[in-house]
C-alpha cells in the first residue's frame, strides 16, 4: 500500500492505493477544506504528519497530527522577530534533518527555521536571516522563497539550501554560518555583463544524491545543473531535454547518477512541452536523458507541474514516481517511469505530492 499526501489549493488529500493495480487510489482523507495546502510530509521517524496550510484570511502555519483523517494541532514558533517588519507569507518545504528530532522548514520571505523537538516548536535561523545582502534579495515569480533543503546523510553539520532568487547557500556548521555556492550558474535572464557578480539566481529545485552526497542536481530558471563538489561549482547537464525550464525534480536515492525532471516550455509558457506530458530521466548523471511517457497524456496535454509536486518511493528500477498537476490530475509509476497510471483525476490544483 502506498500513501500519498497531495497538497492542493483546496486542502490536503490523502490517497491510498497500490501502484500498478490499474485502478485509482482511494481518497482516504481530505483535511483543511477551503485552505491552501502548500506542502505535506510524514516524518517516518516519529510518524507525525506535517502540513503547511495557508488560509487566505488568517495566514500560514504548520499543522501536525498522527492521524491525517483526525484532528490536527498547530506548531508554534514559525514567525519572524517583532520589529523586523517582515511577516511570514508561506511555508514551502518541511524536511527531516540528520539528528534525532531535527526538522527544517523553508519559508517565504526566504528564511530557514529548525525544530529540535520533532517539529512541534520552531526557531528562526538567525545566521541566514541576518545576511547583510538581504535587503537586496529579489523574489522569483513565486515569491522570495526558500524551497530546497538538502541535508547530508549522517552529518547534521552540512547543509545546502536553494532560494528563489538568491541562489545556493552552503553551511558546514549546522547553519551557524552560510556562504554562496553559485559558481557556474548562468542566469540568462540577466544581461551578460552583469551575470558574473549577481546573486539574483533563481534556483527552482535542488536535490542531493544520498549515496554520493557531494553530488547535487539542480533545476534552474533556464538550465539543469549538476555539482560534484557539494554545491561549490555547477555544470550544465540539460542537453537532450526538450526544454531546460521547469520546477519538479527527483533523484533515485539508490543511484547517484540518476535524476528525473518534468520540463516545461519556458518561463513565458509554463506548460508541458509539445502538448505532451513527459518525465525525463537520466541514469548517467546528465550525459543523456530518456523520455518516460508511456501511459501519460500525449495529445494536446498542456499541464503545469509545480515545484514540490513530484516525489519518489523506494529506489532502483522498481522505484515509485508520483507527480500532480495544477489540472488536479495525479500520475504514478511503479517502475521508475517506464510506465505510468492515473493515480487520481480531477482533484483541486496540486501544489505538492509526497509519499508518506
Amino acid at each position: 500500500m502506498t500513501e500519498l499526501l497531495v497538497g492542493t489549493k483546496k486542502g490536503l488529500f490523502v490517497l491510498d492505493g497500490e501502484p500498478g493495480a490499474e485502478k485509482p487510489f482511494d481518497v482516504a482523507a481530505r483535511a483543511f477544506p477551503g485552505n491552501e495546502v502548500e506542502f505535506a510530509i510524514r516524518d517516518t521517524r516519529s510518524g507525525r504528519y506535517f502540513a503547511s496550510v495557508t488560509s487566505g484570511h488568517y495566514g500560514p502555519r504548520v499543522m501536525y497530527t498522527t492521524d491525517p483523517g483526525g484532528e490536527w494541532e498547530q506548531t508554534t514558533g514559525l514567525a519572524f522577530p517583532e520589529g523586523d517588519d517582515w511577516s511570514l507569507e508561506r511555508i514551502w518545504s518541511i524536511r527531516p534533518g540528520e539528528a534525532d528530532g531535527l526538522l527544517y522548514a523553508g519559508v517565504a520571505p526566504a528564511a530557514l527555521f529548525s525544530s529540535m523537538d520533532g517539529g512541534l516548536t520552531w526557531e528562526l535561523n538567525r545566521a541566514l536571516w541576518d545576511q547583510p545582502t538581504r535587503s537586496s534579495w529579489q523574489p522569483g515569480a513565486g515569491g522570495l522563497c526558500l524551497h530546497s533543503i538538502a541535508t547530508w546523510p549522517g552529518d547534521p553539520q552540512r547543509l545546502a539550501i536553494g532560494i528563489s532568487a538568491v541562489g545556493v547557500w552552503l553551511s558546514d556548521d549546522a547553519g551557524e554560518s552560510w556562504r554562496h555556492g553559485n559558481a557556474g550558474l548562468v542566469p540568462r535572464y540577466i544581461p551578460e555583463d552583469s551575470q558574473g557578480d549577481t546573486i539574483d539566481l533563481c534556483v527552482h529545485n535542488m536535490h542531493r544524491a544520498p549515496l554520493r552526497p557531494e553530488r547535487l542536481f539542480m533545476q534552474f530558471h533556464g538550465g539543469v545543473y549538476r555539482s560534484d563538489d557539494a554545491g561549490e561549482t555547477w555544470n550544465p547537464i540539460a542537453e537532450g531535454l526538450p526544454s531546460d525550464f521547469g520546477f519538479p525534480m527527483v533523484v533515485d536515492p539508490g543511484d547517484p547518477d540518476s535524476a528525473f525532471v518534468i520540463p516545461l516550455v519556458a518561463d513565458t509558457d509554463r506548460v508541458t512541452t509539445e502538448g505532451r506530458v513527459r518525465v525525463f530521466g537520466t541514469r548517467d548523471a546528465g550525459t543523456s536523458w530518456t523520455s518516460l511517457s508511456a501511459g501519460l497524456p500525449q495529445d494536446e496535454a498542456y499541464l503545469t507541474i509545480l515545484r514540490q509536486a513530484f516525489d519518489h518511493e523506494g529506489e532502483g528500477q522498481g522505484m515509485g514516481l508520483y507527480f500532480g498537476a495544477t489540472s488536479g490530475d495525479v500520475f504514478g509509476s511503479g517502475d521508475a517511469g517506464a510506465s505510468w497510471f492515473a493515480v487520481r483525476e480531477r482533484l483541486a490544483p496540486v501544489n505538492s505530492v509526497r509519499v508518506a
Partner: protein
Amino acid sequence: MATVKLRAPLKDLAGGNREITIDGTSVGQVLRELEHQHPKITGWVLDEQGRVRRHVNVFVDGERVKEDAPVEPDATLHVLPSISGGGR
C-alpha cells in the same frame, strides 16, 4: 471591558467562545490580550508585527478599523474574514 465577537474558525481556537470580554484601550492591545488568553489564536488575526492581517476585518462599534484604533471600555469588536481573502 470590551466585548470581542468571534466566528469560526476563530471561535474554535478561542475554546468555542463566541464572545469574550477583554481589557484594552486599542484594537492591537485587545487582540494581543486575546492571544494571551487563547494562545491558539496567535498569528491568525495579527501578524508577527502586530498588524491586523490584510484579509481580516476588525470592526469597533460598527466602524472598520486597524490595530491602532482606540477602544472604549464598553465597545464591541467584531473580527471577521474580509470578502477579498477567499480567492486562494
